[in-house]
């Protein structure tokens, strides 16, 4: 039969159309009669299309882990620990090693720990003593003049930054899960060592509390306060300068000055930094006795006295409890500070040996106490985070955007269809069928690949219609030209398609190239635009060329003696 090829083409088109209709309008459960009602179809469509945050409402946050801060802390901690290890160690003869002092570099991408020595002949012993306590395996070691220098090479910096970001990601993940955010998307963004994290929360309209919760560093430390023991009151100073004077004018590796702030609200509200009460200051011993990494659990409990204030009780893991117990046993009567993010929250004297639990008192509200306990439990972030971008769309704004996107698409489509029918008459029907199919299949492809439809995505869809029309116009104009030259109808159609095809390929490839580059380099909204445009273009090669030509072939096959084409 001479029409076999035509039948195969038709079968392919019908099959793809059905798949498209099913993907877009079909139910993902076994179909019921309700799925064939107008309402049922609408519900299925809403369920199948994965709407972006800008259309369904939600919150999009880009944050950055301050990884340079993390490396700086690592460097300073290593420096004080190295100095301590070197000064405490003795050589074989039992004499102290000739270490004079230590310093560090932590800026502009340089991270160095430096120990100064008075006698370089003992360097080997010093290095051995230091390495027993500190893991310097990723640092390069050098002896220059009267100092021993450990440097963190750039490649290791990148690795550590990545590691810190991953760690932050896990902690943030556990925090938002505990908080009950539904269907969050949490992932790294940008270059591997950029420290950027993207958090998307559908349906969250006011992300302030989540932002505070995620951003809380929650670094808890228990430190000894430098003060005469109980019963004399704990020594506080009105200014930082006054406190510094008692320790020789500047902070040292073993003495730090921290603000003492018993705030109403522990969770920072950055809009109101001026509302902070003027702080008092205390001098504490460094390093901390135990820190937050030793925590086993934390919970918000109502304070005694029924004032409605909340406090936080916490307990330690066995190793931490052991350390804490030993220390409290030796320091009965002394004052201890509960330090949260470098601020002293409470100071208490040690009544008796305590092993495994403690409390952070302070006038917390229930919400802040809950949040604080949650962030303490999830662990401290390796470094503070900063927010770089926030985009929040309420559901009502999203619904409005859908409405305007849909009306723009339908408006554009109607105008185009009317023109094509008026200008190309019978052949215009071809174009209209091809256009409709293009739209259907583009949405189907979006669903198939699990891409989200955003407002810029709808714009891409509309531009895809523009390109689809262009292909049709190119073909039809070419057919008309051939007809004008007096060539018969079947030959004109064949020539029109063949000649226009080269041009169509060239135009499509150029636009796909620029869209691909948009997709690769662009961020969120631009990606959505590029995806729909690329899909639309690829599908257009099928609809404008294959489908439209099949329709012409049918026309020729049904009316073999066609003398005049309606075009």
């Amino acid at each position, binding site marked *: 039969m001479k029409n076999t090829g035509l039948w195969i083409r038709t079968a392919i088109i019908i099959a793809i159309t059905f798949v498209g209709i099913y993907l877009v309008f079909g139910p993902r459960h076994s179909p019921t009669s309700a799925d064939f009602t107008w309402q049922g179809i609408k519900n299925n469509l809403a369920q199948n299309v994965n709407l972006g945050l800008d259309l369904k409402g939600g919150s999009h946050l880009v944050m950055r882990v301050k990884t340079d801060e993390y490396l700086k802390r690592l460097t300073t901690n290593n420096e004080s620990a190295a100095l301590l290890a070197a000064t405490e160690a003795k050589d074989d003869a039992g004499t102290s090693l000739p270490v004079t002092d230590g310093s560090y570099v932590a800026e502009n991408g340089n991270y160095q720990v430096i120990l100064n020595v008075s006698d370089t002949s003992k360097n080997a012993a010093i290095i051995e003593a230091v390495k027993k306590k500190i893991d310097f395996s990723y640092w390069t070691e050098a002896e220059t003049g009267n100092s021993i220098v450990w440097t963190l090479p750039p490649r290791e910096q990148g690795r550590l930054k990545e590691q810190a970001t991953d760690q932050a990601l896990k902690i943030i993940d556990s925090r938002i899960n505990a908080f009950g955010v539904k269907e969050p998307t949490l992932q790294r963004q940008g270059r591997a060592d950029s420290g950027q994290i993207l958090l998307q929360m559908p349906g969250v309209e006011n992300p302030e509390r989540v932002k505070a919760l995620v951003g809380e560093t929650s670094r808890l430390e228990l430190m000894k306060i430098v003060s005469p023991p109980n019963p004399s009151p704990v020594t506080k100073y009105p200014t930082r300068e006054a406190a510094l004077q008692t320790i020789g004018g500047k902070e040292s590796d073993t003495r730090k000055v921290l603000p003492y702030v018993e705030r109403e609200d522990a969770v920072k509200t*950055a*809009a109101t930094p001026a509302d902070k009460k003027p702080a008092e200051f205390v001098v504490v011993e460094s390093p901390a006795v135990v820190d937050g990494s030793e925590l086993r659990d934390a919970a918000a409990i109502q304070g005694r006295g029924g004032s409605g204030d909340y406090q936080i009780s916490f307990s330690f893991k066995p190793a931490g409890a052991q350390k804490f117990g030993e220390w409290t046993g030796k320091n009965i009567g002394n004052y201890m500070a509960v330090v949260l993010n470098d601020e002293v929250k409470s100071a208490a004297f040690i009544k008796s040996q305590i092993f495994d639990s403690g409390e952070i008192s302070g006038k917390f509200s229930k919400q802040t106490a809950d949040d604080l306990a949650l962030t303490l439990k999830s662990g401290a972030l390796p470094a503070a985070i*900063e927010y770089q971008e926030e985009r929040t769309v309420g559901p009502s704004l999203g619904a409005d*955007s859908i409405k305007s996107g849909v009306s*723009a698409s339908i408006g554009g489509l109607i105008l185009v269809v009317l023109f094509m029918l008026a200008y190309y008459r019978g052949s215009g029907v071809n174009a209209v069928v091809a256009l409709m199919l293009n739209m259907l299949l583009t949405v189907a492809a979006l669903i198939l690949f699990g891409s989200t439809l955003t407002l810029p995505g709808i714009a891409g869809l509309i531009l895809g219609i523009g390109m689809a029309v262009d292909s049709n116009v190119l073909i039809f*104009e070419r057919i008309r030209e051939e007809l004008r030259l007096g060539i018969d109808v079947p030959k004109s159609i064949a020539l029109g398609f063949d000649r226009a095809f080269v041009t169509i390929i060239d135009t499509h*490839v150029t636009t796909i190239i620029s869209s691909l580059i948009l997709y690769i380099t662009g961020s969120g909204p631009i990606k959505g635009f590029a995806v729909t445009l690329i899909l639309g273009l690829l599908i257009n090669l099928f609809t404008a060329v294959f489908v439209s030509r099949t329709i012409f072939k049918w026309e020729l096959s049904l009316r073999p003696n066609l003398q005049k084409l309606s075009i």
Partner: protein
Amino acid sequence: MLNLFQNIHIDWLGKRKAFIGVSIFIMVAGLVSAVGRQYTPGGTEAFNMGVDFRGGTVVTSKFRQRPSDDEIRAALNNAGISDPVIQASTDKPDEVLIKIPLIESQASGEAVSEQVQQEQVQSGRMIVKKALDSFGKEAEGDSTLDTAPDAVYKIVGTDSVGAIAGSQLRNQAVTATLLGLVGILLFIAFRYDWTYAAGAVIAVFHDVLMTLAFFSVFQWEVNLTVIAAVLTIVGFSVNDSIVIFDRIRENMATNRTDSIFTITNDSINQTLSRTVITSGLVLLSVLALVLFGGEVLRSFSLALLVGFTLGAYSTIAIASPIAIWWQDKLGAAKVKDIQIASQSGEKMASASRRSVTRRPVTR
């Protein structure tokens, strides 16, 4: 058969000086606007950069009874924001867009400290909320203006970008545009010839620069979507050029007698109906975007509207004339080659040996 633009014989190349003059005029206007604005003290900047690129916060708020712009501005001034932009939503009378610049500008000329940058995203929304609270309560959480009878407004959307993220997005956008241009240049050079590629890319630069000129002169907001629009314009502009180049290539293969100028003019005229119809239809869909696309896509649709119009014009007036004129100037020696080549029966090959031979000459 309804026909537009049949049997047109316009000498496009002969008019190239006039066309190039018009283009240069618009570009100079854009340049004067950009430079003038940038260096006029206290004036606006070259481009009205949106928060995407400059950093800052945009809050979209819905009111039960919308206060006047001046009232809103006064409330924001009281909250410490010196120069907010209040922009009414064109299609929704009860909504208003409140744009506040980076918060550091209020810190009395202090250096951009890291702390301040961080607080942009942290607190941009809060500051606006504090200001709006002077009108009454916000419908907070999941409540809406309908379900919370005592609320007078509701913040329905926030866009807040810190200074670092802003510059990152800006760099990304510029990289994307340049890479896109390079990709297209390479593709055309591969498919045709480098003179065509140069013509197409000059036309594309022309379109992009002219679009930017419009954005500077009329101070439309430049944001992320405008970059997407510019790249789309690039794609479409190259499309138009390719359609004509294809025709030039084809005509050159079939017609050995006419001059390159005549062939180019013919090719432009032959494809004129396609150019006009396609551009017209694409403009119709863009017009639908401008009319119904809403506030979010405003800049995007405007950029497309201007860019597509210019794209159609530049294809006819700039791309082909430049490609051909330049080819003619540079390739004076080549013309002889073609004659020799055609005598020896080889396919003519000024445009591209590869492409022409690949294509069977039917007539």
